[in-house]
């Protein structure tokens, strides 16, 4: 990263990303997971070859980071019932069995690595808490017997 990219370029790249890629990903949860997967866990730098070829690596990284933050904010303020629906829909899209999915998410808590950097701790804590509740709700719908998956 040589120098800070210009805000105007980042905004153009962001619009480009929204138009070409993110418009096909309707749910904020899916967008959050998709954008988190664009980030290198070792460096925290986002990569998107198509966007980088149209703009620059730095501009693409900034644009992806902005969109990631937006998706996170959207998810933090979404009501619990919506989060439950989004989680269920995401589960369906992965073609995993509900029980397998709920067990993996309950144990591994993959949502913890999907938050953008420099997220304020309370918002992250709140989202993690909502995921925990949403998983418990989905589990209760799966099996009427109370089981302590998320405990």
């Amino acid at each position, binding site marked *: 990263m040589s120098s800070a990219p210009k805000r105007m370029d980042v905004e153009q790249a962001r619009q480009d990303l929204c138009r070409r890629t993110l418009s096909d990903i309707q749910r904020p949860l899916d967008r959050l997971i998709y954008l988190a997967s664009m980030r290198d866990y070792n460096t925290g730098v986002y990569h998107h070859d198509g966007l980088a070829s149209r703009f620059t690596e730095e501009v693409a990284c900034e644009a992806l980071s902005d969109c990631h933050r937006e998706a996170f904010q959207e998810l*933090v*303020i979404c*009501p*619990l*019932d919506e989060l439950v629906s989004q989680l269920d829909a995401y589960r369906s899209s992965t073609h995993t069995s509900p029980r397998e999915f709920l067990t993996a998410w309950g144990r591994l808590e993959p949502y913890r690595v999907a938050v953008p950097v420099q997220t*304020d*701790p*309370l*918002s992250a*804590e*709140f989202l993690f*808490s*909502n995921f*925990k*509740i949403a998983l*418990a*709700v989905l589990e*209760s*719908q799966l099996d*009427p*017997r*109370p089981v*302590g998956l*998320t*405990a």
Partner: protein
Amino acid sequence: MIQLLFFLLIGVALLSSLFFLVRRGSPRAEGDSRVLVDARKALDALQGGLLPEELVRRIFAKEDLDYVLSLKAPKTVRDLFIAERKKIALSWIAQVRTQISSLKSFHVGAARSHAKLGLRTEIQLACNFTTLLLACRALSMAIYVGGPYVAPSMVGATASAAAKICTISEQSLAFLNPVQLKPYASGSLTS
């Protein structure tokens, strides 16, 4: 001789108090940078992370409780929901309290050196800080005992009082903001 010593002692005492008063009256121009940085961080944390209306509304939203109750979910789910929301609510109030205390330290120790606040504003600010910190403690106790939905009006009042303090603190810390330079006008150097 004793009288002379007595007057000398009084003289020394008066001179030392004068010295301390003079020192106190002319604060160091550079101030305490750590207090300033902490205050700026506290202000950013409050305005950016803790006080946004949508977040506060969502944390204390009763619709979520209604949703969980409407599910006829097992008691474990309801208990988990209440416990999680209580934890977040207590965390929110604790963090607001910490950041407000940090701003208070700034105002008590350094604001006089840096900010051009009037006496009236300073008194108002001192009252606001005291009231808010007491309200935070009361709210924390209420949530601890009665759960996250026990005092919605108190949550709103606390958030708006904290926002008001942020606005005043913002003015005090305005000198830390980058200078807004006027665009270069041709010929301005030659005139």
